């Protein structure tokens, strides 16, 4: 059976001493650090971060039970909360006094719910009566209140990426007040209300901290609300409601993710996908909010893929007792001891592991039958290139009835992304050329993501092997190649010559010269790079393999002459002749010849034997009564040039150019 687990835990988890009666474990979402505090810090605090650099170990005096412990950004200052009234600070900057200093919250009778670092020296206290924004002066061992705001707070959430703090206010707790912090300023954002499934009477706190999470998806900040089902309301199953939180303007309910089940859930964000873990079924669902469900003002989403559990994970035994031959122990997934943090962190405090959740793309290919949707899904993922290319190969491999429309949709989707990138790149180049003085900061060089699949990718990984595979009908091969060329043209992307070569090679191998001729006639196989008239290829083919019958060629082989009139004509002709010749050789010998045979230019040279003759006067003959027949034969050079248009470029060719090309 094919691999179906599309979610996995990271290979190298962060390992720490598991929680116990003497060891308290804390997690800081901002720095993604795990703090293992043994006996209040007296016997040591071990900090493990995502990399070794952010890992620290130190000792501090045991001044009571630690409620919360966090480093400021860059591990400069450590903040420890031991009471509900104050927070203690310790400098970790070298050459600064290491003695602890403390700050009580300004509001009287308030108790501190928690604190967040918004910068290396800026900290926010969240109390049940409001928030206080401080600047820390480590040298002076003091804090300065920058700003504060009174508001009744039930609980809070912090999104470190955007430095936004979300406060739950009112009795029911469903009015949420966000605050944004940046460079020493605190700004109040517009508050919004979460629609509760049932309004309790009498009013009591009904929105739990556990059901709200904040995360950035596709660069936008969302508040995710896990809306449980209720028997009274008409919601048979739970759903996740996403509120889009923009810096300016109001917060809007924007997406609804249908979970189609009930129970305990947890949320993660991985690669811009919303992952919903369901504990009782031990499975997870993923949602992509950009996969549009049409005709719906408010986007209602179904899971992209069927529910699957996270890939089974085995814990390698560690410590001195571990014997290398001993098999690793399977780890219990979806355990009740798991804590889930945004965006993609899962912590098992009892086992002492911190994992990053990851999406594996290959299994999704077989789970999503609609290839168009699959492409939409894959194109938005980070590590998608090879998977997309393998999907392309797979579609072509099947080659079953009716697969061409699918191929067309897939190509169109790929080329849309490709085109967007090319346009961005072009406008960037133009902006650079026009002078960096104007708005140079605004123009950033477009990032080429993995989703940009260009022609050489397609050629190397998909098309070249596809055309060489045995047992595929040439009709299908040509149809696919033409479909790709059509798609590129549709997006006004210049087609690379090697694609033309592939078409020509396939047509030549199957003796489809009339088709080739028609393609050339309608400029399907030209434009991007001027090609010589089809005449020459066909003639040359006849020359090269006179045995192969070319019935529609009325020419004698001796007529194969190459243009010499203009240098460029000759230059580009070589490349095309090249590929035609190699196609011909392949057709004759039954094997493939690399398209760029060095011998070919010579070959082309050899066939240029334009004879120059002197221009002599025209011979005038009297013929018939009153008719003067003039035979200016000698004015016509013997050398023949029959290139249909090369040169002038596509720009000045009128749409009815074909008319004249025939």
């Amino acid at each position, binding site marked *: 059976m094919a691999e179906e687990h599309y979610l996995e835990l990271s290979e190298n988890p962060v390992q720490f001493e598991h929680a116990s009666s003497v060891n308290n474990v804390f997690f800081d979402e901002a720095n993604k650090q795990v703090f293992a505090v043994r006996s209040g810090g007296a016997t040591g605090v071990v900090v493990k971060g995502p990399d070794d650099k952010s890992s620290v170990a130190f000792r501090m005096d045991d001044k009571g039970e630690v409620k919360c412990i966090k480093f400021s950004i860059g591990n400069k200052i450590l903040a420890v909360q031991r009471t509900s009234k104050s927070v203690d600070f310790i400098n970790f900057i070298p050459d600064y006094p290491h003695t602890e200093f403390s700050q009580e919250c300004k509001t009287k009778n308030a108790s501190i719910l928690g604190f967040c670092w918004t910068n290396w020296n800026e900290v926010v206290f969240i109390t049940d009566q409001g928030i206080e924004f401080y600047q820390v002066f480590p040298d002076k061992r003091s804090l300065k209140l920058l700003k504060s705001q009174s508001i009744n707070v039930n609980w809070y959430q912090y999104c470190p990426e955007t430095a936004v703090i979300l406060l739950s206010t009112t009795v029911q707790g469903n009015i949420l007040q966000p605050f944004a912090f940046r460079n020493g300023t605190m700004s109040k954002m517009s508050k919004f209300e979460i629609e509760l499934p049932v309004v309790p009477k009498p009013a009591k706190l009904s929105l739990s901290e556990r059901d709200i999470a904040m995360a950035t998806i596709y660069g936008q900040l969302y508040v995710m609300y896990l809306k449980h089902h209720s028997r009274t309301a008409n919601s048979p199953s739970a759903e996740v409601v996403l509120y889009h939180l923009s810096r300016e303007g109001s917060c809007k309910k924007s997406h609804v993710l249908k979970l189609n089940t009930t129970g305990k859930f947890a949320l993660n964000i991985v690669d811009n996908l919303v992952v919903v873990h369901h504990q009782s079924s031990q499975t997870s669902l993923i949602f992509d909010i950009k996969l549009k469900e049409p005709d719906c003002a408010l986007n209602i989403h179904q899971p992209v893929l069927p529910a699957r559990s996270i890939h089974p994970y085995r814990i390698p035994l560690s410590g001195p007792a571990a014997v290398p031959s001993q098999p690793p122990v399977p780890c219990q997934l979806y355990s009740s001891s798991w804590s889930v943090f945004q965006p993609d962190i899962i912590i098992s405090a009892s086992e002492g592991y911190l994992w990053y959740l990851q999406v594996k793309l290959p299994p999704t290919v077989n789970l999503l039958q609609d290839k168009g949707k699959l492409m939409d899904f894959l194109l938005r993922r980070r590590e998608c290139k090879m998977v997309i290319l393998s999907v392309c190969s797979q579609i072509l491999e099947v080659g079953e*009835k*009716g*697969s*061409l*429309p699918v191929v067309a949709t897939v190509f169109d989707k790929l080329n849309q992304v490709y085109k967007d990138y090319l346009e961005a790149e072009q406008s960037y180049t133009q902006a650079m050329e026009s002078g960096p003085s104007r708005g140079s900061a605004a123009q950033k060089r477009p990032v080429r993501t993995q989703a940009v699949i260009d022609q050489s990718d397609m050629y190397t990984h998909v098309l070249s092997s596809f055309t060489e595979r045995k047992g595929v009908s040439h*009709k*299908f091969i*040509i*149809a696919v190649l*033409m*479909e790709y*060329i*059509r798609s590129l*043209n*549709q997006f006004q992307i210049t087609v690379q010559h090697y694609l033309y070569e592939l078409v020509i090679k396939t047509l030549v191998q199957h003796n489809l010269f*009339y*088709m080739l*001729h*028609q393609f050339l*006639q*309608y400029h*399907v196989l030209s*434009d991007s790079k001027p090609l010589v*008239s*089809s*005449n020459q290829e066909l003639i040359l083919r006849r020359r090269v393999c006179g045995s192969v019958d070319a*019935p*529609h*060629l*009325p*020419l004698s082989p001796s*007529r194969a002459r190459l243009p010499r*009139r203009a240098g460029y004509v000759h230059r580009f002709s070589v490349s095309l002749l090249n590929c035609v010749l190699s196609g011909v050789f392949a057709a004759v010998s039954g094997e493939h010849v690399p398209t760029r045979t060095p011998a070919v230019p010579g070959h082309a040279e050899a066939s240029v034997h334009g004879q120059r003759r002197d221009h002599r006067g025209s011979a005038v003959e009297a013929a018939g*009564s*009153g*008719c*003067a*027949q*003039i*035979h*200016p*034969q000698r*004015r*016509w*050079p*013997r050398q*023949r*040039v*029959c290139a*249909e*248009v090369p040169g*002038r470029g596509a720009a000045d060719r009128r*749409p*009815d*150019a*074909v*008319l*004249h*090309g*025939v």
Partner: protein
Amino acid sequence: MLMISPKMASGMQEKQYTPSLLSFFIYNPTFGPREGEEEKKILFYHPSDVEKNEKIRNVGLCEAIVQFTRTFCPTKPAKSLHTQKNRQFFFEPEENFWMVMVVRNPMIEKPNKDGKPPTVEYQEEEMLLPSCLLQCYSMYKLFNGTFSRAMQAGGVELLMQKLEKFFYRYLQTLHLQSCDLLDVFGGISFFPLDKMTYLKIQSFVNRVEESLSLIKYTAFLYNDQLIWSGLEQDDMRILYKYLTTSLFPRHSEPELAGRDSPMRPEVAGNLLHYGRFLTGPTNLKDPEAKFRFPKIFVSAEDGYEELHLIVYKVHSLVCFLIASVELTREFCEQLDSLVGPQLTLLASDICEQFTINRRISGPEKEPQFKFIYFNHMNLAEKSTIHMRKTASVCLTSVHPDLMKILGDINCDFARVDEDEEIIVKAMTDYWVVGKKSDQRELYVILNQKNANLIEVNEEVKRLCATQFNNIFFLD
């Protein structure tokens, strides 16, 4: 039997007669080699009411001429024999099968004043007829396969039956008097189209062929002009001839008749698209409808294959598909529902292009230059001389004498392999220029009073630069 069509009666009471078919016969000398069995050689003879001995005599004469000339050139026996009154054309399409056409030369009858019988002058101008014979054979082959195929299937009797059935009708549609340069070329007029629309059509063709696996080849025409052919060139050439001169004119009349006319066939009540079959059933809903399509024979890797021709039309866009087996109602319905809507879309796309092209090329009714262009390589032809060409009438915008000059130039070109340019000044202030460059031939007719050779040459250069800017003519 003489088919005489007086063309012009001048004030002098002169009568001109155009060339006309005297006889047409097919024979195989190996079928009656012994004396007394000569009649067996004759497979078909037109006119049929000729006395038996005369038939035998004419056939024998042809046989003798061919045999005699063979001694001079064994590989290329005589192709035609010119006499004062008529010309005979010989053609051996298959081994030992000979087709012969005897045509009376055009002549002028001058009445004599004193009651004597009028004097007749035969004219010995070039006639563009050899191609006609080849076309006869190709047309027969398209619908019946080769002669030897009929021989294998049912012997001489079957072959004679088939020949009789086919040529009896076909010869009636031969119009030798309107045979001109375009008939010699037997070219295909291509529809100018931009790359993107062309690729869309490609995409459509590929999809249709993929989803309806019975369909082996597809071709596309718009306004009687070819856009795409999946068939080989030679097959397409003759099929194109059949479609444009026979099938389409037959079907265009009911369309022109207007909506309310009783001549207009009941459209199948299909509101989704405007597609209909030109061959096969006229109305899919009709329970009595017959699902019979004409059989055609096209070249395949191993000889010939027998196929069924489905012609499907939406507005001016015709798509014809060629399937390999007997077709059923289900298939036709499937095809109708699949092809109809897509073709309707494509037709409007192409129509849009067509009007744009026409707008660009200018509103003038009479094209500035009158020319005929032909490319031997891809059989592409283009004429601004012919207004409309149907089987019976060929409307040209120039005088027949000029057309004759074109024919003469063409004959000159055919004799030499080299590139040539011929400039002719006709009696009526017209200049006719013929240009042959590699595989391409261009004939231009200019009407410039008092123009000299240099000016005419410049004019033609200008034409090449504007109208054929993407074709490399040599000069």
